[in-house]
């Protein structure tokens, strides 16, 4: 039996958490409200706030100064980040904004690790707020930390302040007008664009304030922003994006569900929030108080130029395959088998990047949850070979089917949510699977993971580096060829049409959701195959395969190579694995460089490596035309004619 005192204590705990979530979600929705940008760096800014608070206390000894100065500093960081990057690319598709903030997140996280070290740190409670308050009534006897009570009050105070700022000041008026009609406000010109910076700074400062407030009762560590970012996303989705009231209600609700849920149904610890999210998605996909009007602009992915995939049967394709087939022959002469193994790993990652490109580059759905397929594929493979059969192909097939079904399910639940919603939801779903991987230790081996027997089929040892190399190469080539085929099929046409304009596709008579679900299932299947091969590569699986870092890395690889080209992401995977294998050994903060790289790509080469030949030939062409004075148009017309001819030849 739960005593009333315990119940009230948990109620207060829930409120405390809720207020914290509210502070984070408030900053997130303030930024989204005006700029249409979901800031993936928000959790990192929150963490930065906590660390800066730590340092201010270290210097001044005052918690209050920390609470004042740290948010301001974080606000400045936010403003600088906006000015240097987002400010110049507001006219781009939201996908690029999301990826850019993701790069910023990597940079901030690594920066913090560099300055403050990777270990968790203690943040002491200020003296006046230390200790507990006690209350005795007939049935109740509660003692509760004063600091948490202060947090509730402070959170309510900050929320009121923000509300007042938007309600009663000129600043708020302009920002609200901007949120209502971004087009008009954008048209108003340079003056208003400064408000974007201010809004970003405000959102970042809110995150920073939340960080300082949270620090005394959660430990301060570089990863403290990760879980809170996911909860903030869930808050915004549950409450309804763009509804401040919705965020308030959802934040408190989630805080309560988490604390009371743990008390009443301890089995669901860690899952209650996800279950709440899924329930809301099923019943009210627009969120509790949201109107759910996705702006057309926030759902679009479009490209300046079409870069057709290289066909397997083309000269380039055949040559690449031939070269790759010869690679193992050089073992011991030109290179060691280590590099052949590394190439297998690259092929596996290439599959994952390819699967992501199908949904992102071709259908325009922003998935930040492909870790789910990678990880589930790996777990299914390991579990199958451990418990049922030592035939690797059976495990592979099972992994592919399972992931296809899971992707279909996630799609069915969330595909009605386009654009930024979809990015947040897929991230949350992947975290749900990660949670399962960590918690359900009887089956998954918990954080330790599971070891798998050396993969084999029909007496062939797949553990052999060369054999495994040819297996992954064959699967990669086959999957690539099939993907090219599928995207050129009637189905693929519709998928591309949906990317260009979902509304128009529907108005022609297509059930666009059906196409989206199928394409997502296809992508999940391929992701599952990749995950299965990854397990076969390392003969081991752990929850790390389900961690959001995998999703992020897949996005990076895809962007690096060139989204919407199918072959680009595979090249990107090669470069990505090459960089990480090459740099991680020498540079501890190499992910900082990765983040920087990502930001630079988004800013300057959004179509990645695949577009480099054209970017280069265009700039030499420009140089030539400057020298000889021929006009640009001729070049373009030439190019179009060749493109048209290529189209006819195929």
């Amino acid at each position, binding site marked *: 039996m739960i005593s009333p005192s315990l119940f009230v204590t948990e109620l207060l705990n829930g409120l405390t958490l809720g207020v914290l979530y509210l502070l984070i979600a408030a900053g997130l929705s303030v930024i989204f409200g005006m700029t249409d940008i979901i800031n993936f760096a928000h959790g990192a800014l929150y963490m930065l706030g906590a660390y800066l608070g730590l340092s201010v206390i270290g210097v001044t000894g005052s918690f209050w100064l920390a609470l004042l100065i740290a948010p301001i500093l974080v606000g400045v960081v936010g403003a600088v980040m906006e000015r240097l990057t987002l400010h110049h690319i507001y006219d781009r598709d939201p996908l690029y904004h999301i990826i850019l903030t993701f790069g910023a997140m990597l940079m901030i996280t690594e920066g913090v690790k560099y300055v403050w070290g990777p270990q968790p740190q203690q943040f002491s409670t200020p003296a006046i707020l230390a200790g507990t308050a006690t209350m005795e009534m007939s049935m109740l006897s509660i003692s509760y930390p004063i600091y948490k009570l202060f947090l509730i009050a402070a959170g309510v105070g900050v929320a009121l302040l923000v509300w007042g700022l938007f309600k009663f000041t000129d600043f708020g008026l302009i920002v609200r007008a901007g949120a209502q009609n971004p087009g008009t406000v954008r048209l108003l010109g340079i003056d208003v664009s400064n408000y974007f910076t201010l809004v970003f700074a405000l959102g970042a400062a809110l995150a920073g304030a939340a960080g300082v407030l949270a620090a005394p009762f959660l430990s301060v560590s570089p990863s403290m922003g990760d879980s809170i970012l996911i909860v903030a996303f869930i808050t915004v989705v549950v409450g309804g994006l763009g509804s401040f009231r919705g965020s308030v209600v959802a934040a408190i609700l989630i805080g309560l569900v988490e604390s009371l849920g743990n008390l009443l149904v301890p089995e669901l610890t860690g899952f209650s929030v996800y279950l709440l999210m899924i329930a809301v998605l099923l019943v009210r996909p627009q969120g509790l108080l949201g109107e759910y009007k996705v702006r057309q602009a926030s759902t679009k992915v479009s490209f300046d130029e*079409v870069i057709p995939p290289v066909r397997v049967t083309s000269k380039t394709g055949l040559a690449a395959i031939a070269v790759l087939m010869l690679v193992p022959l050089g073992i011991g002469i030109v290179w060691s088998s280590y590099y052949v193994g590394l190439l297998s790993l690259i092929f596996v990652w290439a599959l994952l990047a390819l699967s992501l490109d199908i949904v992102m580059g071709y259908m325009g759905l922003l998935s930040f949850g492909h870790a789910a397929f990678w990880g589930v594929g790996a777990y299914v493979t390991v579990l199958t070979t451990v418990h049922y059969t030592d035939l690797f192909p059976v495990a592979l097939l099972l992994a592919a089917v399972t992931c296809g079904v899971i992707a279909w399910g996630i799609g069915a639940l969330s595909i009605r949510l386009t654009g930024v919603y979809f990015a947040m939801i897929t991230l949350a779903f992947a975290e749900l699977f990660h949670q399962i991987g960590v918690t359900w230790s009887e089956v998954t081996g918990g954080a330790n993971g599971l070891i798998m027997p050396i993969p084999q089929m029909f007496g062939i040892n797949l553990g052999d580096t060369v054999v495994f190399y040819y297996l992954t190469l064959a699967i990669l080539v086959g999957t690539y060829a099939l993907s090219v085929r599928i995207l050129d099929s009637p189905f693929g*046409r519709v998928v591309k049409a949906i990317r260009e304009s979902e509304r*128009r596709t529907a108005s022609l008579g297509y059930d666009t959701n*059906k196409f989206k679900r199928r394409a997502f299932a296809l992508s999940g299947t391929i992701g599952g195959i990749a995950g299965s091969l990854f397990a076969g590569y390392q003969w081991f699986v752990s929850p790390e395969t389900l961690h959001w870092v995998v999703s992020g890395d897949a996005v990076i690889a895809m962007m690096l190579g060139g989204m919407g080209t199918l072959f680009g992401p595979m090249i990107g995977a090669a470069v990505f694995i090459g960089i990480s294998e090459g740099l991680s050994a020498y540079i501890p903060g190499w992910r900082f460089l990765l983040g920087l790289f990502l930001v630079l790509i988004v800013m300057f080469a959004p179509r990645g490596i695949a577009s480099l030949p054209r970017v280069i030939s265009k700039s030499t062409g420009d140089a030539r035309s400057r020298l000889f004075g021929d006009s640009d148009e001729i070049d373009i017309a030439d190019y179009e004619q060749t493109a048209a001819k290529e189209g006819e030849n195929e």
Partner: protein
Amino acid sequence: MTILETENLTKKYGNLVAVDDVELSVSAGEIRSIIGPNGAGKSTLFDLITGMQPPTDGRIRFDGTDITGMASHKIAQRGMSRSFQITDVFGGLTALENVQVAAQVDDSRRSSMLRDADGLSEVHGKAMDVLADIGLDDRPHQRASDFAYGDRRKLEIGLAVANDPKLLLLDEPTAGMGSEDTNSTMQMVQRLAADRDFTVLLIEHDLEIVMNVSDRITVLQDGGVIAEGPPEAIQDDETVQEAYLGGVFS
């Protein structure tokens, strides 16, 4: 025979009544124009009829069935097609691919994953016919976003025609065009309607054109119908002249 019928069709946005109790009845084969000042609710009426927005109240019957509340793609499959006031073509696809997507919608292989989309020869033929009809068959492999504005407007109509509609809703097909383009586009629409035998519901601002091409005209103001009749009657209608035409025909 009546192909489209609405019964006290109403759409409210908060306090604003965008479409107010509209009773519309369109016969098969006619060209019906909807005119009215900016903000009269014309585009919203189209959104309701095509199922892109749910009505607040009222019913819609199309080709003998009640389609109120039906999903827009289902309505489209029953033979209703529309073009948009603001061009909405598949910019990243070629002109041919654009019309192919529209033309393959009735094909049983439309969601096949393994065939070559260009290998569906009937679809390809149908799409080329449409491109010829809208005068873009000389550049089938050009990206839609690379066409000039007027050509994109034509493609906008081409997309709507390519899935063989029984009823075609055109939302200001000539918006933003010069007078020459406007005339040729309207002739194109008339020709298409006659050749392909569909009914047209047309929103158009150019009154001269409206008077020339329409069989009947419906006048909307503040969401409600203020007059309906053949062009001559509308031209002479005093309410219309006062409320909308403002002396253009006097």
